[in-house]
């Protein structure tokens, strides 16, 4: 099921007839079985978890994907779909006894229709490529994860990806209107399409964010929206991060919904300044705010934001003078994760959500954890929607430090949950957090989710071991396969 650290289990070869059938389905050049080639697929962006699949198959179409899945299903071989592999929760971690289905060859934009405000794309198209395809026509694809240059639409659909601008514009789920889905038995179903409100249950809504456990999306119809008439990008510096948090609350209370509100603390800023020189005003925390809309509304909102920042004690406020300056400010934010290498040999990226009114107390809890464990935590977050990305810094060459960092990261999540938050705002549960799911969801909650999963994939072949815990993965504690007490009561009930 994949293991921690560098140890890679040797692949178990596919039965010869299965390999032959797969090669016939996609062409032998697109079936990879050589261990050296397989190593490139052993992990996704969460590199601590690795497993070597038995093979990697690279189909070029919906039909080929369906053919591949049909063959695997007939032999009971589990499979994991993979986009660009930039995910941070191990959602594309291979199953050692299974096959990886890579969608990198399916990277065509099939249709652009701006009367409909739709783009139809194959799953391997990158997020940015969708926006680029319509930019000259005055449109964009709204979700903008920081990895948008490389991450794919298929992966975005699987993870319900967000990004800095989802505060105002919503997540992937708000921008996907149709999909072609290859089910775990190889059947192909169409969910939704160009029009809104398709007949029947909103299965598409359940598929978005299902982390590749309900099927493989091989074609997506996306909603694109007009570029805003005007944009203002502002930065404000604060002497304390709590003051920046107050500014965020004040902006929301003022009735302004910025397109984005991003917060970075001193540790994150020192790394970012060293790496990409964004030229932020100096302070213990920097708030990056973007408002967009019609010009005059935009100007008014920018003034309201500045007033809120000053009232909360901002030491400096700047509006970017032009696109160049705005791009520089954004480069600083987008580079934040990568820049951490400047100040720490290793770091653990956490992703948790809190109600934004509880920011101050959660930041305090994070500071206490830093002190208790003697590790630094850099804070980078989507402050507007309460999505925290604490980066726990550590030196993996020092014995025990990696474990302590993981402990801190886990306890930060506990602090998020304690105030009514969530285990993940955009990275997903994947393999990384699967054993923590019971902290947020009761057995009954998990059973309800399990009902959905088994409706789509009764044999459990589609990305097994992700999203929902099993006793095999996590020990007996979560126990979602145990019958629920109400089931046991079913015959001899109280009435």
């Amino acid at each position, binding site marked *: 099921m994949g293991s921690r650290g560098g140890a890679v289990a040797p692949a178990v070869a596919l039965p010869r007839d299965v390999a032959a059938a797969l090669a016939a389905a996609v062409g032998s050049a697109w079936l990879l079985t050589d261990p050296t080639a397989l190593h490139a697929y052993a992990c996704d962006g969460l590199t601590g978890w690795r497993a070597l699949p038995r093979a990697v198959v690279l189909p070029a179409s919906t039909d080929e994907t369906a053919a591949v899945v049909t063959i695997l299903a007939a032999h009971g071989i589990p499979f994991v779909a993979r986009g660009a592999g930039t995910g941070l929760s191990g959602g594309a971690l291979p199953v050692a006894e299974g096959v990886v289905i890579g969608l990198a060859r399916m990277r065509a934009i099939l249709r652009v229709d701006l009367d409909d405000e739709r783009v139809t794309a194959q799953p391997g198209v990158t997020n940015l490529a969708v926006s680029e395809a319509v930019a000259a026509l005055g449109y964009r694809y709204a979700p903008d994860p920081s990895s948008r240059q490389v991450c794919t639409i298929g992966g975005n659909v699987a993870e319900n990806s967000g990004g800095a601008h989802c505060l105002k514009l919503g997540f992937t789920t708000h921008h996907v209107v149709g999909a072609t889905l290859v089910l775990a038995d190889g059947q192909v179903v169409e969910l939704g399409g160009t029009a809104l409100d398709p007949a029947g249950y909103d299965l598409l809504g359940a598929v978005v964010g299902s982390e590749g456990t309900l099927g493989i999306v091989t074609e997506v119809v996306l909603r694109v929206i007009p570029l805003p008439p005007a944009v203002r990008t502002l930065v404000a510096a604060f002497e304390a991060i709590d003051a920046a948090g107050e500014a965020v609350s004040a902006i929301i209370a003022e*009735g302004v919904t910025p397109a984005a509100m991003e917060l970075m603390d001193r540790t994150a800023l020192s790394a970012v300044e060293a790496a990409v020189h964004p030229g932020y005003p100096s302070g213990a925390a920097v708030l990056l705010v973007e408002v967009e809309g019609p010009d005059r509304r935009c100007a008014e909102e920018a003034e309201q934001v500045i007033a809120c920042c000053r009232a909360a004690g901002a030491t400096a406020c700047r509006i970017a003078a032009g696109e160049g300056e705005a791009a520089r400010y954004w480069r600083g934010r987008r580079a934040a994760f990568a820049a951490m290498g400047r100040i720490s040999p290793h770091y653990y990226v956490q992703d948790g959500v809190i109600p934004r009114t509880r920011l101050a107390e959660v930041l305090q809890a994070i500071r206490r954890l830093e002190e208790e464990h003697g590790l630094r935590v850099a804070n980078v977050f989507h402050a507007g929607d309460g999505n925290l990305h604490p980066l726990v810094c550590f030196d993996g060459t020092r014995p025990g430090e990696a474990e302590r960092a993981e402990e801190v990261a886990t306890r930060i999540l506990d602090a998020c949950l304690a105030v009514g938050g969530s285990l993940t705002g955009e990275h997903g549960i994947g393999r990384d*957090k699967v054993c923590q799911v019971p902290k947020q969801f009761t057995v009954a909650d998990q059973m309800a989710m399990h009902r959905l999963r088994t409706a789509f994939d009764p044999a459990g072949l589609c990305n097994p071991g992700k999203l929902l815990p099993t006793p095999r993965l996590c020990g007996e504690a979560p126990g979602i396969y145990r019958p629920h007490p109400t089931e046991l009561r079913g015959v001899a009930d109280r009435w």
Partner: protein
Amino acid sequence: MVTPAAGVGAVLRRAAGDGAVRPATARDRVAGVQPSWVVRPQAVEQVAAVVQAADARGWSVVPRGGGGGMAGGAAPSRCDLVLDLTGLDRVIEHVPGDLVVAVEAGVTLAALQDRLGPAGRQRLMLDAPPPPRGPAPTLGGLVAAAAAGPRRHRYGTPRDLLLGARFVLADGTVARTGGRVVKNVAGYDLCKLLVGSRGTLAVVVELTLKLHPAPAAAAMVTVERVAAPDLVPLVALVRRSPAVVTAAEALWPERSVLLRVEGPPRVAAGEAALLARAVGGRVLAPEAGERGWSRCLRRPWAGRGAVVAVAVAPGRVGELAACAEALACPAALRIGLGVGLVRTADDPTALDRLRDAVEAMGGCCDPQRVSPIGAERVASRPPAGALRLMAEVRRRFDPHGTLAPGRLAWGGP
């Protein structure tokens, strides 16, 4: 059907309390089908106990909110109890700084807005669909029906506003999905599945909803005498205009388009003026604007006949208007989205004609206020593969078909 025997009443009273159970009357009919009992629990645990007791005995349960949707729609194949959820009427928590509210399913939209009004200048951005003199719609009912009004243009539907839910499955299990934060990807998003499922997958008992800042002012722009083929070019102008438009409705057969701009007073007025210039329309004076807005909200519910929700590719909204015109059906079309409401005679010929015309455009029809026979007639079906999957989802959530069996006009199980 269960005979209204004393033994059944006793079981229900044990589950929901003495005062919560009464024999059903003719007014409790669901699409013409007479239930035996009405149960009105006051607590989630009572809902769970009732549903579990019914499921164990093979009694079917039709959940009911305000009741506005009960007369029409597909007739239930069985209807032993109506589960009246208006007793679950608490606002559980409103955190203004988080723009989030948690409510029980029986809270009415009007009661919630009243509650939000003074406190935090916030609103649930869902326009109540009339009937104007009908019962007040509950939030649970609006979610079950995926109902939305003209401001869907900007704020979406319950699908976009529902952050989390607590629900009772047919076997009595009480579970939650989603959460109380605006951004959350932990676990499957069962909210999406519950929205529009008309009580057939679970009984939704609590909702956590996303709020928006209440706009301080609104201005209305009108464009008169619009020809159907001009609608798509008009939408393009609206999209490119420097105004935040929250509703864009074409009212047919008047051939008038009403656009709503919301924001701070000076901003809304300024943008409305720019918008009017861009689209060749005019800004309505405040009273005329209010009249126009209330016409948008009422249309096409006011008047007799069947009301059908239609959806086509947004680029075909001009064809949709032409179709409404050809069929002589009053319509309110959300022109930016390709959706709308059409009123037609509630007879098989008229409904067939409407469905055939909409489906010929690649679109779908969903009955909103249609007689039981007409509802099944006019409802578009999902493609075969998707329908099989939907049936399987239903079977996993409600294996005995206890919850609102037969109520899905689109041919759901």
